[in-house]
């Protein structure tokens, strides 16, 4: 019995010992594996002359989902904003009082929290506020819609206080009374809010409009006096707000202009047909070189460019499930587009990439990059590809 146990243990241990003695795999025998040989190749659009093409174009995209309101003017841009406040929290007693004309508006003040400056960074800034008479919504309202917006020419703002972080101004009490009445009595014409526009070319300012706890969003503070001479202080936050930016995008033949606010997007295309269809992309890196003289940015912005895979460049349709980001490093914006190149190699239609500013709804930054036709090839967009290929299939 003891002999059997000893034999069993010795055999088991010997098996384990022998297998564990193996060396790590080495290159011995690699010369015999020609049928399976793979290799790596590195190419780039500068040294290997991959054909490329770029262009940019203006787009009309609503800014209603932006987290900022833009107001101001530069020599080439103008930003205006529309705000409507929410009065659903108005107490029933006050609703009755306003309907019975038993409520007096003692004061009405709007506070806007400043988060962004573009152009002049001084505190000098002026604007006017106007009652809006026509309907608007945050969905689909663009610069094209602005011409049909009806508003009173008279300025309903006064007592402006402008600091680096906060702008406050008084609003015409009668206008606020109309809004409260419209909330209390549905027969009364509805409230369409106010229209804010700059009155001087002193740069563009951005104000917080969206926050998780509603902090720092535009607020209307109203003081009312009831028939019993009781005073009540009411706060109303905005229910709808949006900005519209108008102006002109510079016409540059050898550059790519990607702009926020007054939105300009770009298309960039590379010919990768020279890569073998069986190739596997290990890395594809796109680098754009910034034209710093033409680029203009504000005080707080997203310093990156987004890239989308064009599924239909004619209708500017991209695969929204897979986008990439080019991040800034000095005067270059660089990012990985491996899956884009792999998809083109694999036979998906190569209609190029769509480029847009990552914060294109939040400000009016203008990123200008040297384009595909720039005479200095070293400044053209550069695509660097590392790929694996099988020597024989």
């Amino acid at each position, binding site marked *: 019995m003891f002999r059997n146990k000893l034999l069993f243990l010795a055999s088991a241990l010997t098996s384990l010992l022998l297998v564990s003695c193996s060396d790590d795999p080495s290159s011995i025998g690699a010369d015999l594996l020609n049928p399976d*040989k793979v290799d790596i190749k590195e190419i780039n659009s500068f040294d290997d002359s991959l054909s490329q093409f770029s262009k940019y174009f203006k787009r009309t995209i609503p800014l209603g989902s932006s987290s900022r309101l833009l107001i101001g003017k530069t020599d080439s841009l103008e930003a205006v904003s529309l705000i409507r406040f929410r009065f659903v929290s108005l107490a029933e007693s006050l609703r009755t009082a306003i309907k019975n004309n038993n409520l007096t508006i003692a004061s009405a003040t709007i506070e806007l929290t400043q988060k962004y400056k573009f152009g002049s960074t001084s505190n000098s800034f002026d604007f006017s506020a106007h009652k809006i008479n026509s309907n608007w919504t945050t969905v689909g309202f663009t610069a094209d819609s602005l011409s049909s917006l009806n508003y009173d020419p008279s300025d309903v703002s006064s007592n402006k206080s402008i600091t680096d972080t906060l702008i406050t101004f008084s609003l015409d009490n009668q206008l606020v009374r109309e809004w409260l009445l419209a909330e209390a009595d549905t027969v009364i014409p509805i409230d369409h809010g106010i229209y804010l526009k700059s009155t001087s070319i002193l740069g563009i300012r951005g104000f917080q409009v969206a926050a998780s706890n509603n902090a720092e969003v535009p607020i209307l503070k109203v003081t009312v006096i009831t028939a019993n001479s009781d005073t009540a202080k009411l706060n109303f936050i905005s229910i709808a707000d949006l900005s519209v930016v108008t102006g002109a995008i510079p016409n540059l033949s050898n550059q790519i202009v990607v702009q926020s606010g007054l939105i300009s997007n770009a298309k960039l295309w590379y010919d990768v047909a020279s890569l073998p269809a069986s190739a596997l992309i290990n890395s594809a890196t796109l680098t754009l070189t910034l034209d710093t003289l033409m680029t203009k940015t504000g005080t707080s912005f997203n310093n990156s460019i987004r890239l989308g895979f064009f599924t239909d460049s004619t209708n500017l349709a991209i695969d929204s499930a897979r986008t990439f980001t080019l991040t800034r490093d000095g005067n270059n914006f660089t990012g990985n587009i491996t899956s884009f190149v792999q998809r083109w190699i694999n036979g998906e239609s190569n209609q190029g990439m769509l480029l847009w500013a990552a914060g294109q709804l939040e400000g009016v930054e203008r990123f200008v990059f040297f384009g595909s036709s720039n005479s200095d090839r070293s400044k053209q967009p550069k695509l660097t590809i590392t790929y694996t290929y099988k020597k024989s299939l």
Partner: protein
Amino acid sequence: MKFKTKITFLIFIPFLIAAQSSTSYTRFGIGDIEYTFTARAGALGNLNTAYNDGAHLTILNPASWNKITRTRLEISSKYDGVFLSNASNSKYFGNAEFGGFAFGFPVSELNGIGAAMGLVPYSNISYHVKESALLSTNEEYITNYEGKGGLSKFFIGTSYRMPFGLSIGATFDYYFGNFEYLSQINFTSSNLISTEYKKTFNPKGIGSTIGLISPDLSSLLKSEIITDLRLGASVSIISNLTTDTSLIKSSSVLLDTIGNGVVDMKVPMRLNLGFNVALSHNYLLNMDYAFQPWSEYSFNGIKSSNLRDAHKVSAGFEYRPSKELGSTFWEQMVWRAGLSFEQTQYQINGTGINQYSVGGGFGLPMGSENSLDISIQYSTRGTTESNLLKEDRITLNLGFSLGEVWFIRQEK
């Protein structure tokens, strides 16, 4: 735990600890050919076509099952240790694997009718090669080449002994397999994604092995020393194997089939010839020859320039001090030795790869019909010249041969 259970567990250990040997020669054709699977055959030169004793099951010649008197199970596992060398380097690789099993039982001892079935490897592909290099950016990448799998055979067959002593046997064979050839590139930098090409072949098809063993011819020699003399022959025929193929490329951003299809794989027939001679009942000598024309191998109609006809000759010697009941443990121990020369099917870049083997082993008795067989074999093949490989291989084989009386008709 009973001793038999322990042994069975031991045989299955390779499933748990299997590593991979690195033999790039197995990239060609269907890999290394497994002639037999038992530890006994491993000690006797790996063939033994004319074996005609019911103490073990062999798979080379189904006619040998005519002597089965007990229900038998043969099961084995093996360990391969390979010192692999090229002109500048040498490494050691180990690989443990399940050897296969065969199960047989007598149907009619009087007529030599035995039946057997089993699952055994027919070929083996096993290599793993790594190369490292640098990109122009000085980032390191490792290229992995890995091959694994092989062709297996399930067989079921029977034997019959004719009145004048000639035994014949035949099997129906079903061949199936999975060959995987991987080519991978991995990076140490996370900026580059790893890539892989995987080529897979799944052959399947049928075949048959037909064998015969002569009657005892010892009387022709009129020698008292020669107590048994037999000639044996068998031939294995394989139909064209229908092979599903696929080539897949993949990375973390892609999984794509480059190509797939169904093609024919032609594996040539194999002829085995041998003779066994028993001397004074205690000594057994066998000499064998096997031939397989691998020059006829083709895949999708294309022959391989790296394959040639394979020839193998072997000789084995077995000594058993006593077969009598009541003998001591040591008297019942079986001692074996063998050697072989093989002109393998590999012919790489015009250089043929030949193999020389020598081995030995013993069978430990575990009752009257059971044995634990252990063999060790050293073989060498190849050369370090012409960018080829030299292999020095140690093969340890552990087999369990179990015989019991089953299917006994009860007297009324």
